[in-house]
């Protein structure tokens, strides 16, 4: 279809919105290299020098280095646990034709609609009751539960594409159920696994409210998303440091996004609307 001249307003509107998305990020990035005076005096001017002073301050004042390590630890372990739980479940539900399996699958796909943050306080009680309050361990155990509905639903669809004959052949060779899952289904579901990992990487790395309430403000334990807002209180109105800290937390996600843009878009799109 040709886009005629009458599309001019549409082009203008769309690019204006694109600019609105970009300008704050540019401001963020530019301000990270400036002092307060420069930021207020000429907010849009590119930085004069690329000194890393602000980054260093942000790093030491809010213990961001340790926070990044904590975030990585929680994210990686939670991702591993998610796969450990979701893969066998999806394997079972995908192969089975029974009524129980169909009901279970339905339970998981409905769970997709339960908003995670609705039950913050009871989850806090659960953490206190299990003695895991103020630990990263609880988050490692808890985050996979929030990711399970989506992960299971996505993986089941991939498991269904594995031909039945492959399993039967493996069975004839004496393979156990575990071996079938490990050597037949898992390799064939790698794209699905990648999707699940990417999606959950984003949501685990970016998780804020639960980490704030459950891990708490202890600098030795807290994640980077909890540490970041404390910069506002610590530095007062030192915008250079504040923006430098924000840029630091965005870097890992940005790198992953730019490297895996296509895959990530597919993941997010399939993740948002598989019901």
């Amino acid at each position: 279809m040709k886009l005629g001249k009458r599309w001019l307003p549409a082009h203008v509107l769309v690019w204006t919105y694109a600019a609105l998305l970009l300008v704050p990020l540019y401001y963020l990035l530019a301000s990270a290299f400036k002092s307060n005076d420069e930021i207020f005096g000429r907010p849009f001017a590119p930085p004069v020098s690329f000194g890393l002073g602000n980054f260093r301050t942000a790093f030491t004042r809010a213990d961001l280095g340790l926070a990044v390590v904590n975030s990585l630890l929680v994210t990686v372990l939670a991702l591993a646990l998610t796969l450990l739980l979701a893969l066998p479940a999806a394997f079972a539900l995908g192969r089975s034709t029974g009524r129980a399996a169909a009901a279970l699958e339905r339970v998981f796909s409905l769970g997709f609609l339960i908003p995670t943050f609705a039950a913050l306080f009871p989850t806090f009680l659960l953490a206190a009751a299990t003695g895991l309050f103020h630990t990263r361990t609880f988050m490692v155990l808890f985050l996979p539960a929030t990711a399970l509905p989506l992960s299971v639903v996505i993986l089941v669809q991939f498991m269904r594409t594995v031909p039945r004959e492959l399993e039967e052949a493996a069975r004839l060779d004496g393979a156990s159920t575990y071996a079938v899952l490990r050597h037949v289904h898992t390799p064939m579901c790698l794209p699905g696994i990648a999707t699940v990992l990417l999606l959950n990487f984003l949501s685990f790395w970016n998780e804020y409210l639960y980490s704030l309430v459950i891990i708490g403000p202890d600098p030795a334990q807290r994640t980077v998303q909890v540490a970041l807002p404390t910069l506002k209180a610590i530095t007062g109105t030192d915008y250079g440091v504040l923006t430098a800290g924000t840029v630091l937390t965005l870097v890992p996600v940005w790198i992953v996004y730019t490297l895996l843009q296509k895959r990530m878009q597919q993941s997010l799109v399939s993740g948002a609307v598989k019901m």
Partner: protein
Amino acid sequence: MTTLTPIPGGRAVHPAAPSPATAPPPRRQGGTILAVPALLWYLVFMVGPMAAIFVIAALHWPGMLQPVSFAGLGNLRTVLDDPVFWDAVRNTAVQLAVALPVMIVCAFMLGYYVAQRPPGHRVIRYLLFIPGLISTPAKAMVCYAALSPDGLLNGALKGVGLGSLTDAWLASPSTALACLIGLDLWSGIGFTAVLFAARLDGVPEELGEAAHLDGAGHWRTMWRIHFPVVRDYVGVVTMLQFLWTLFGSAQHVLLLTQGGPGTSSTTLSFLVYQKAFIAADLGYSQTVGVILFLTGLAGLLAIRRLFRQTY
């Protein structure tokens, strides 16, 4: 009776078993049981806390270490008599009524635009995704840097000679809620548009072309041809955005305005957080939680009805 029943069953089964035609397919080993750990995990960490909301809502519990007593519907009465609750209802209603329609309509049009593959659509697609990647605290920091008294927006206004329009946007009762809605829209439109674009990419091109041959413009094609085709998908995305706005607003409020000034930006989901972790009135907090949950459920059903496939 007990001795009789097995016999007909046994008779019916035994002659049939040897014949290969009616033999049941070989049972697969290790069936549904493998789904049990995931299910347990899900029940303990998601369904359990969800159910607990309803229990705590019926308790009088004035603080973590205070004695707990049964309150029945007492909390509900307290909540309904509290003007703060009604402020929060109003703010949430305004937030949903403004953010949701604007977001869905704009995102659909933007998605349609991108799906037509105009020049530069790849760049646009890349940019639209940015808000979907940024964590809530980072978004809040961007918003804070843009809207604080000496931030980006005021700087820009001064720069073009409109210094008299500057305001402490986040700290002014008349603009605090608008800022939160603005943040929702800023980050929501782009992400939702990518979802719509991906779905619209799958609509056969002939549909649009046929409409064009009949003399329909893009505006007509967009709403009369494409929209009905992806109607149920739009419904699903609307449901998700509804839930994210309804429940997720607590994080933005907490990071940017703390519900203030006064109660001008207190939303229902922030009220749940505030009463639980700041005011330590746990029964009150979870009663609002129950109301929020039921609102969410009612909203989902309403949206599903609204977007039911009609062709």
